[in-house]
């Protein structure tokens, strides 16, 4: 069974380091130009150089998105940018435009070119065509592919395949939606998507209003497909979410890291172990999830039907350990917690340990029954070793 690359998103340098420390083999990120997710806090060239250096120290790699559907002006400065990325030590660029693919292969042949999911590739012939004519090294498959599609494409394709395993899903074919353009003049294919699909619509038949509908998609969670995707020989498992929080990145990356490693070691896991891994993943998730198209066409049960299903807050994250002194951790808080709550600590490369919070003090040394306010420093005794940077969450 092939052990795939675990590819994580990062919206800023801190999340990039977190993803690598919690087990990502590679991180994809966007520069200040040429990248979708324009509202994600994207990386300067210096940030990218530092990310590459950090990745090298941890035997990981950096992929950079150049995945806008480029207008004329988007080509200005692109050659120089590609050379800067190569010099910084980037391994791959993720590209949606055939002209940019060809340009990258000509200008910086040392860089791998990965065909973005924006091109909606669902068959091996399309990937082979782009390999022959534009020189791609890998194809990121469309999220509309079933498990069987992924198997067949991976088996016959001339390039490596990459498949999404977790995170947001467009309800429409990637790159083929202009709802946002029409309704808000924000170009979805250049990072401006207003997520108009998640709004509510009256469905009319002729003059008759037949009721309300919505098109927002639940997020993808392919936990139960991981073993099959590994057996299929997929080269890279991608987690979506460059706009997600550091806690999300740590939780999701760490959970999939453990799952992939355990499957690689033992093969298919028992129902009990799968239940445990699913619970770990869901501790980092704050949206409804579904299996996408992996088990066939995603239907009504893949849609967010109620307003309160969308973006529910996840109150599980208690805070990040800032310092440790004599068995007491100083936590920068995020969500409320009380004496008697059971907490667990996520530490890079370590199994999760849990404990009961038996005491807490604020910065003035006052003993507290409950921490209510975010971004305060709270001192907590922890009965095992913890490190600065570890994350604490409700069990």
């Amino acid at each position, binding site marked *: 069974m092939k052990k795939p690359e675990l590819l994580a998103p990062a919206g800023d340098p801190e999340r990039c380091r977190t993803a690598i420390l919690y087990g990502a083999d590679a991180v994809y990120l966007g520069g200040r130009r040429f990248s979708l997710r*324009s509202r994600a806090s994207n990386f300067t060239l210096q940030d990218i150089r530092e990310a590459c250096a950090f990745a090298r120290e941890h035997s990981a790699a950096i992929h950079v998105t150049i995945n806008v*559907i*480029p*207008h*004329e002006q*988007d080509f200005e400065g692109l050659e120089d940018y590609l050379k800067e990325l190569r010099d910084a030590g980037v391994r791959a660029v993720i590209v949606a*435009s*055939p*002209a*940019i693919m*060809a*340009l990258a292969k000509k200008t910086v042949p040392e860089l791998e070119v990965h065909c973005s999911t924006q*091109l*909606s590739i*669902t*068959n*091996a*012939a*399309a990937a082979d*065509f782009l390999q022959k*004519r534009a020189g791609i090294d890998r194809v990121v498959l469309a999220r*509309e*592919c079933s498990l*069987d*599609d992924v198997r*067949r494409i991976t088996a016959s394709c001339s390039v490596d395949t990459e498949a999404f395993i977790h995170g947001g899903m467009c*309800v429409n*074919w990637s*790159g*083929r*939606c*202009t*709802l946002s*353009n029409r309704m808000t*003049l*924000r*170009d979805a*294919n250049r*990072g*401006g998507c207003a997520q*108009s*699909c998640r*709004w509510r*619509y*009256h*469905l*009319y*038949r*002729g003059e008759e209003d*037949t*009721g309300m*509908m919505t*098109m927002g*998609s639940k997020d993808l969670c392919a936990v139960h497909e991981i073993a099959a995707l590994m057996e299929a020989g997929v080269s890279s498992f991608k987690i979506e979410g460059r706009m997600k929080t550091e806690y999300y990145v740590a939780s999701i990356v760490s959970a999939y890291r453990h799952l992939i490693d355990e499957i690689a070691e033992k093969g298919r896991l028992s129902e009990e172990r799968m239940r445990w891994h699913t619970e770990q993943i869901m501790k980092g998730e704050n949206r409804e999830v579904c299996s996408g*198209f992996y088990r066939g*066409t*995603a*239907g*009504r049960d893949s*849609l967010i039907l109620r307003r309160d299903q969308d973006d529910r807050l996840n109150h599980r994250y208690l805070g990040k350990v800032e310092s440790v002194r004599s068995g007491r951790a100083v936590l920068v808080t995020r969500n409320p917690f009380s004496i008697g709550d059971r907490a667990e600590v996520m530490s890079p490369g370590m199994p999760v340990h849990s404990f009961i919070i038996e005491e807490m003090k604020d910065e003035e040394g006052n003993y507290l029954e409950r921490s209510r306010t975010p971004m305060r420093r709270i001192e907590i005794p922890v009965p095992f070793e913890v490190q600065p940077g570890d994350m604490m969450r409700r069990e």
Partner: protein
Amino acid sequence: MISGSASTGIWAMNNTEKERIAVLAGSPADPEGLYAAGCDEVILAYDGLSLAAVRKAQQILHGTGWMLNAVFFEDEKGQVQKVLAQLQAGTGSIYFSDPALCAWADEYGMTDRLVYRPDTLAVSAPDLLWWMKQGIRSVCVSPLLTLEEILAIGDACPDCEVTVHGHLPMSFSRRPLLSSFGAQKGRFDYTLQEETRQEHYPAYEDERGTLIYTDYVQCSFTEILQMREHGIHRFFIDGSFLGEEELMDAVRGYRTVLDGADPRKVEEEYRKKYRSVLSSGYYREKTIE
């Protein structure tokens, strides 16, 4: 340039030496009237292999073009190749959006009949020229561009094709979005209205998924002449959600404008006759990042 319905010979009367108007027919029954109205090539949506909110055909008509613009899955390869083999004898254009079709058409020596129509993805001259270098017939410019951007593309790539008229596709989904809320597949009378807006967006669902179109009809009676000045000579009219007569009048209107009629008068007459909301789309409205 020779095209049209061999059964009627009507096409032969059209002056198509330069500008060329292709029309996605609302129904397979339309072609002869469309040729008579001034269309150079009628495009039919191939049943099961196209993304278009029009009635689809399977019977091969010599001379017509075909819309095979679906995204194809592994298990559809054989079916698509079979259709390409059937179309091999014709001369009509084959519109596609999946790069696989380019590879498959090459096996049948049909690359020069292909027109790349990815709706949103062709927005720059470098990308259009890359596709043209693959030996295909044309590339459809995304309707998301401003007129200025389209004209610049025309200067660099005059063999591009511009959609000048019709409801524009806004989104394609593989999901059954309408039937998930009780609608029936295959009907053309559904619209969506966002709860805080007035506009009604025509929507259509079939076995391939769901399409949503603009509330307005893109209209370019004036702009088509500017496009011609910049070398663009291929124009496309999308008949989705347009009535048969309205589509004929649109074709006739563009043909007469290209032949010298006053575009403002043609547009005024069209506006008077039809209640469609006409719009210049994104020609003068630049989207932001």
